[in-house]
């Protein structure tokens, strides 16, 4: 065993190091504890209490400045258990309209460390939340009789209109998970849940302020520390201006009463969402205050799922509303030109396959095909594209090209709307079919139903509306969004930038013309308003759940579009039955401000009809 005595000396360095550190620390401790009396003075009788000051939450306006969501005060009863002295419990309970048993139970719950790990008899504990203004008034007068109790003001939401719940969302008390995720929150704080309240939470909530108070060793507050030199004022939340037109929203919601589905209206030039209805909906004020818990439970268990925002979370087969997009892809890929005509003998008949169609002239080119919603035309076009090996090499390659065009049009992925939980819909890729049918064991005919928006294809009403807006703009769109302005801030640039699909702009005009023809002399004649040029496309989507879904996309005015809509009504039959009337009424209401007399009957019919009864009923 070698021993290196030169190295052994290094023990003095390491030993010396710890001696030096301990010496320095001893000097420091001596300074803190003995030499400097400052700390003693702070602590002997005083200590800090940080008290949060709650800012008011941002107010939400609609696009014309009407107040949609604002604040109302609410009062919580807090208590510091250690400071509570014997008091008239019975009187206290009577004032709050609770029984003495409830009182005892609440106190017991509060002290149970398992359910309330933050309990300390020295710090404020919540005794009761959301006192009504009336109870608050009664209690306030008697407060001096209950030492140890005090009232904390909080802020709740109040709604100017009982609509747009799916867009606005609501606020709820933070959970432990929220606190762990974001240290800004402390127990008892509120945070946005669903809708704009959630996605714009950081703007709306503002910033809590803090008051540094001094209290003595018994916990009693003595005053402000250094006269408030370390206090911080609360910063109010920023106000939001929505793109939503609250009147239009209310009107669209009324048309959708007793129906399941969604209406999305977008201003094409800006991507601003003018109205977004998910039906059935609920009154947002149900989720405010003490009754929130029971109402929320009820909404969750409701079989029509009102909390599920169908406009951006439901993935539906787009049906024939998919055809304009198809037309764009076929033109772009050179599969067809404007004079290419395909035959239709009451449907597409090829390779032992038949996709039915309605009676109309044959053969016909693209624009009349859009006008009459010819299934055969788009089946032929799609089959020719998929099977054009000379251009793409294989069906799989062709399908990938087709899919990428669709993705550029906003399908298959979330568009990026400024609301939480947007669904991506579903656009399969070649790999999906390879897995399902085996590699190169499928061709255009195998998957022919996707050409008319059926089969595997799924899209959200928002995505469908956005495609309509792209056609209205003749070749571009802006990510749809519900917030128009944030006070003192610019909205993120991804909500203002134009996005260009991979399709040449010149083809959009042709498709728009086909959609115009559908209104003037095709499937959506009901939408032919007397003094506004409307373009549109119906959709009738077969689905495994029951009666066909009724859908419609449309925009107006034709030459300078101000509004693009998508209507989707579940189990309501042909597109012309519900989709077209509701869509045209929404456009008329928005553009003219009222419904013309000769169309009042239509409005009446929509307001009164009920399609919810067909939900879940199997076709016979």
């Amino acid at each position, binding site marked *: 065993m070698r021993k290196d005595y030169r190295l052994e000396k290094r023990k003095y*360095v*390491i*030993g010396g190091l*710890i*001696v030096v550190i301990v010496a320095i620390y001893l000097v420091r401790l001596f300074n*803190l504890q003995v030499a400097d009396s400052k700390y003693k003075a702070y*602590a002997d009788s005083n*200590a*800090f209490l940080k008290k949060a000051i709650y800012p008011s939450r941002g107010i939400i306006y609609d696009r014309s400045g009407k107040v949609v969501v604002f604040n109302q005060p609410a009062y919580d009863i807090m208590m510091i258990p250690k400071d509570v002295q014997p008091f008239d419990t019975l009187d206290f309970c009577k004032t709050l309209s609770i029984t003495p048993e409830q009182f005892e139970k609440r106190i017991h719950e509060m002290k149970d460390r398992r359910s309330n790990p933050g309990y*300390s008899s020295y710090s404020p504990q919540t005794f009761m939340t959301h006192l009504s203004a009336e109870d608050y008034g009664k209690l306030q007068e008697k407060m001096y009789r209950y030492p140890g109790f005090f009232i904390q003001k909080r802020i709740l939401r109040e709604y100017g209109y009982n609509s747009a719940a799916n867009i606005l969302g609501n606020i709820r008390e933070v959970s432990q998970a929220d606190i762990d995720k974001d240290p800004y929150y402390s127990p008892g704080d509120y945070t946005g849940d669903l809708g704009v309240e959630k996605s714009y939470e950081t703007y709306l909530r503002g910033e809590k302020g803090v008051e540094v108070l001094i209290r003595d060793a018994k916990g009693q507050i003595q005053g402000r520390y250094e006269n408030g030199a370390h206090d911080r004022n609360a910063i109010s939340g920023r106000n939001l201006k929505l793109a939503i037109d609250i009147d239009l929203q209310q009107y669209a919601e009324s048309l959708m009463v007793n129906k399941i589905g969604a209406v999305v209206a977008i201003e094409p030039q800006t991507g601003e969402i003018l109205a977004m209805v998910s039906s059935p909906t609920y009154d947002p004020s149900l989720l405010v205050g003490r009754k929130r818990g029971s109402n929320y439970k009820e909404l969750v268990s409701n079989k029509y799922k009102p909390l599920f925002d169908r406009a951006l979370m439901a993935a539906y087969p787009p049906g024939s509303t998919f055809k304009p997009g198809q037309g764009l892809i076929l033109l772009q890929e050179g599969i067809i030109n404007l004079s290419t005509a395909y035959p239709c003998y009451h449907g597409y008949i090829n390779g032992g396959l038949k996709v039915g169609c309605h009676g109309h002239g044959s053969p016909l080119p693209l624009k009349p095909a859009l006008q009459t919603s010819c299934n055969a035309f788009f089946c032929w076009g799609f089959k020719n594209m998929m099977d054009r090996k000379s251009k793409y090499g294989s069906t799989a390659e062709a399908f990938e090209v087709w899919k990428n065009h669709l993705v550029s049009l906003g399908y298959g992925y979330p568009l990026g709307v400024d609301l939480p939980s947007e669904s991506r819909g579903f656009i399969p890729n070649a790999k999906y079919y390879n897995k399902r049918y085996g590699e190169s064991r499928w061709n255009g005919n195998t998957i022919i139903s996707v050409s008319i928006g059926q089969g595997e294809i799924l899209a959200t009403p928002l995505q469908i509306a956005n495609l309509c807006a792209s056609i209205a703009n003749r070749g571009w769109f802006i990510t749809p969004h519900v917030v128009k302005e944030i006070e003192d801030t610019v909205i993120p640039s991804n909500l203002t930038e134009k996005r260009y699909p991979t399709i040449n702009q010149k083809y959009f005009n042709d498709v728009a013309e086909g959609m115009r023809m559908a209104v003037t002399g095709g499937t959506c004649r009901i939408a032919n308003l007397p003094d506004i040029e409307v373009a549109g496309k119906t959709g009738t989507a077969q689905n495994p759940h029951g009666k066909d879904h009724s859908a419609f996309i449309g925009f107006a005015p034709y030459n300078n579009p101000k509004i693009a809509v998508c209507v989707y009504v579940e189990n309501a039959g042909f597109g012309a039955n519900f989709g077209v009337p509701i869509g045209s009424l929404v456009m008329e209401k928005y553009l003219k401000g009222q419904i013309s007399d000769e169309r009042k009957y239509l409005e009446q019919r929509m307001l009164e009809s009920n399609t919810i009864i067909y939900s879940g009923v199997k076709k016979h």
Partner: protein
Amino acid sequence: MESKSINQSYFRYVDWFTVGIYLILIIAGVFSVYAASYDFDNASIFDFNEFSGKQVRWIGCALALALMILLIDARMFETYAYPTYIFVVLLMVVTIFVAPDIQGSRSWIVLGPVSFQSAEFGKFATALALAKLFSSYDFRLNDKPSNYFRVLLIIFIPIVLILAQKETGSALAYLALFFVLYREGMSGLVLLSAFCAVLFFVLAVKFADIPFMDTNLGEALVYMIIMLIMVLMMALFCHRYAATRNILAWFVGTGLLAYISSRCGYTLPGNPFFIGVIAVACIYCLVLAMQGESRKILITVGAAVVSVIFLFSVNYAFTSVLQPHQQQRIKVTLGLEEDLLNAGYNVNQSKIAIGSGGMTGKGFLNGTQTKLKYVPEQHTDFIFCTIGEEEGFAGSAAVLMAFMILILRIIHIAERQPTTFGRVYAYCVASYLIFHLAVNIGMVIGLCPVIGIPLPFFSYGGSSLWSFTILLFILIRIDAARRRNLIY
């Protein structure tokens, strides 16, 4: 026969002095935890629902563990050093994936009612592995670079894994093992340059806002220290006294020139001036180096150049690499910002709690600051507050001294080991203790940035207590076998 009797009597060689300090520390610890979590609604110290009761239970387990370790054959530790290390490393890898996210850190393995931090058990495993490596046949650290590589591998695998668990504090503790490397032959320059780096950093950040010669006082001070280091190295390291004199004269002369010019109303631009002066000195040294015996002079020049580059990168590193909350903690520690609401709150409260203790303290369970829960984490990382407040300077000094004596004793034990294995292991134990003591108490009294690591034997929590108990008792067991090793 003879070996058997020695085996049976090894308890005679157990270092009861160390065991005694250990017992004193853990008993003081459990009382502190009791005091720190005491709530006037007063539960008993042994109440298993309270922190102190749980700590008592863990201490019981720790003592059982200690006894078990003392009964193991000392040779087993050496034999199973690598397997233990590999096992613990795997455990840490598993931890990253299975551990629940607790306030951003994924370091706790939960087994039913028990949860523990694998990083804590990495400490003794790494120490054993390091000791095993150093004791392998004919291993000398400075023989070849690959030896350094193997040593650093053993140290950095756990560090990386613990960083992946987001437990920066625990990971830093492993850096203390560099003391061991120093003891085993690593050049002292490594520790010295680490010290200089910290010094430069502190100076550059602390005085960054005071203007001086068109730059700031922080940078100017660092330049001056670099000059001083150059002079010292030329004299004490290179033994070139004539050159030292010339360089010193150059520095002093240019300094005077700068001073006079500023008095005359023309302030020289700081950065170009200092860099120019240092560059000229470096070139002079390089000329000397070309005349032979160049290695040491080149090292000197290299040190100066690296220092200047380091200085330039400090600002960048501080503002761009560190997270805002880390910058804040450092600034608060350096006294640049008084931020009583966020980063400074804990430290300020802890200083008040300790400072209010006075010479003899307020008495057991009479602390008001800690009772009113002003100091967060007071039963874990900030446990020293309670001691400071309730036992005063006398108590906290006693705790510090006890730790110092324990560490010095371990160094003494280390040097009496007949085997490299025992010595290296003992130094590992000492290094961990030095680091934990220095950082934990440093942060509580506001001399170190807040890094969340526990105070050994005191802080509430089973993982830390068991980890240090295992570390210490393996050492005591190895030490008890020192006589037997003398036989062969």
